[in-house]
């Protein structure tokens, strides 16, 4: 008996299911008038601290909410809930990133029309979240001054998938001899034209500019997809 081999064409994006779901979410967010910002970074670079301060500072003016992803514990949700904003924890178990389906499930029971801003804090990980579109309007990648200026060169894909880079913990820049020019050069080398902001959520340095940036981007209804496909490069704020 002879067997013959035949090739059949498929041509399907592996992440199609996630992408389709993310597009549907993005449309829902848009229809409800909520501006969605996701945050990615390595563990410990200050996502929760920045978010905690941001929720508190935006609240007098805007209705804000947050989803926060972690492998385990509800510690971050408890921290963020101190701001009185609605917060939900997504525990991913052993999964190293959030996917669009998890965001959709977590949103059940919330009316999106009740919010002006929704923040999604991804699992601390500079590798895996880069491939998954969550339907966000804007993706922030955080990098703290304590991590080393070459972080963007080591993890180019995540920087490239994000729209804006935020350098955090700038109050520690002197103590760790942070080389600002090199860090900025490295960010731009992997994501040409990227907007870069610098903040210290702890001291408050740069927070006004960061909040202003969020307001402006929300007002602009900056609803084009994150650059998982091929979003246009953004202008630098330099």
């Amino acid at each position, binding site marked *: 008996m002879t067997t013959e081999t035949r090739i059949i064409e498929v041509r399907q994006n592996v992440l199609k299911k996630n992408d389709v779901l993310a597009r549907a979410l993005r449309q829902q967010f848009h229809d409800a008038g909520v501006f969605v910002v996701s945050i990615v970074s390595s563990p410990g670079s200050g996502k929760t601290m920045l978010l905690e301060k941001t929720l508190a500072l935006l609240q007098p003016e805007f209705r804000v909410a947050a989803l926060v992803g972690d492998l385990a514990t509800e510690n971050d949700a408890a921290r963020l809930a101190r701001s009185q904003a609605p917060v939900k924890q997504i525990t991913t178990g052993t999964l190293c990133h959030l996917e669009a389906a998890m965001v959709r499930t977590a949103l059940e029971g919330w009316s999106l029309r009740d919010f002006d801003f929704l923040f999604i804090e991804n699992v601390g990980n500079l590798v895996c979240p880069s491939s998954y579109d969550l339907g966000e309007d804007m993706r922030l990648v955080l990098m703290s001054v304590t991590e080393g200026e070459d972080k963007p060169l080591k993890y180019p894909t995540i920087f490239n998938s994000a729209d804006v880079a935020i350098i955090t913990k700038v109050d520690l820049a002197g103590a760790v001899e942070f080389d600002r020019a090199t860090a900025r050069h490295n960010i731009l080398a992997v*994501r040409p034209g990227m907007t870069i902001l610098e903040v210290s959520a702890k001291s408050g340095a740069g927070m006004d500019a960061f909040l202003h940036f969020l307001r402006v981007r929300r007002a602009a209804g900056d609803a084009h997809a994150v650059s998982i496909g091929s979003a246009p490069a953004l202008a630098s704020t330099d």
Partner: protein
Amino acid sequence: MHELSIAMSIVEIAEEESARRGGLQVTAVHLRLGLLAGVVRDALLSSYELASAGTRVAGSTLVVEEVPGVVYCSACKVPRAARAPDSFCCPECGAIASKIVGGKELEVVSLEISE
């Protein structure tokens, strides 16, 4: 390490396609993988074995075609091959390229079936 999730999606696509065509036996799955897709080939290959075990496509081989990264250099005004995933500088003039035009592919291209 999200290669296992990716491998499971690939298995799912292959299984669906096989079922749609009346349960053809899949011997290989051909995948295009871009240099800038954020997926590690070797990790994906070992994950595939795990993900396909016990499924309709168990025993099939994952064949990965790697696709280079391509950036558009606005100084030279031409697309250029990116040297590495950590550099979007133009390999000719050194300017930071303004746009990525290729290398994010993660696509099941075809299935090899035996009959």
